[in-house]
């Protein structure tokens, strides 16, 4: 199981600013290990963010997103105390869902 995401959601000027740090190798499949063998690709392919049951961002990623991905975005229509739920799924079918309360 991957480590939890670090999510910060703050309400500023009527908009929710969300910053996420995910823990993932984001292995490209092009690198080789010490013995010269290719390391298989392992990367997040899908990211979804919802708030109050409504999707506020969805994304598809390739292996060229940096290791331990950082993501920031903004949306409107939510209040302090609401929850932002973020989930990702990688190319091996592993997934992780975390949430944060809007402050």
């Amino acid at each position, binding site marked *: 199981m991957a480590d939890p995401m670090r999510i910060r959601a703050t309400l500023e000027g009527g908009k929710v600013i969300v910053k996420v740090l995910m823990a993932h190798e984001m292995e490209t499949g*092009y690198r080789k290990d010490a013995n010269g063998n290719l390391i298989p690709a392992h990367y997040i392919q*899908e990211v979804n963010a919802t708030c109050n049951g409504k999707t506020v961002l969805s*994304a598809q*990623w*390739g292996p060229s*997103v940096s290791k331990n991905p950082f993501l920031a*975005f903004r949306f409107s229509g939510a209040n302090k105390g609401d929850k932002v739920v973020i989930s990702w799924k990688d190319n091996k079918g592993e997934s992780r869902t975390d949430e944060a309360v809007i402050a």
Partner: protein
Amino acid sequence: MNVSRRIFLKASGGVGAALLLAGWPRGVLADEAWNAKAFAGKSLDDVVKALGGAAAQPSADIALTAPDIAENGAVVPVEIESKLPNTRSISILVEKNPNALSADFSIPAGTDPYISTRVKMAETSNLYALVQTDGGFFYAKKEVKVTLGGCGG
């Protein structure tokens, strides 16, 4: 020639079929949501076509912020903000990476057409911010010099 095979190739797109034959992990193909064809594209044109467009036009209404020189190609911060009306998606492309498309974000109504993230760059290259609106595809580009590549072994 085997007719049904032709039809299959046409329906799935050459790239998808090639990946299937090469033993692409099953989970990827089963999951139709992930656009394997777009992520296999080698150029801006390839990706625009895979996303269902014809061609992308340059636009001054897309703000693409990235460093002029990235010391470490493994972590290049990219910030994109679109001022085009009805922006539906924002994509990040790196021209000289093995596959151009890095990330594709769908922007629902109520979410700002703004994204900040970090990508890997194999070498000095153009970075593209591709924006899809109701009126088609638009892009902004910026060259980022990379002193240490992010994809090497």
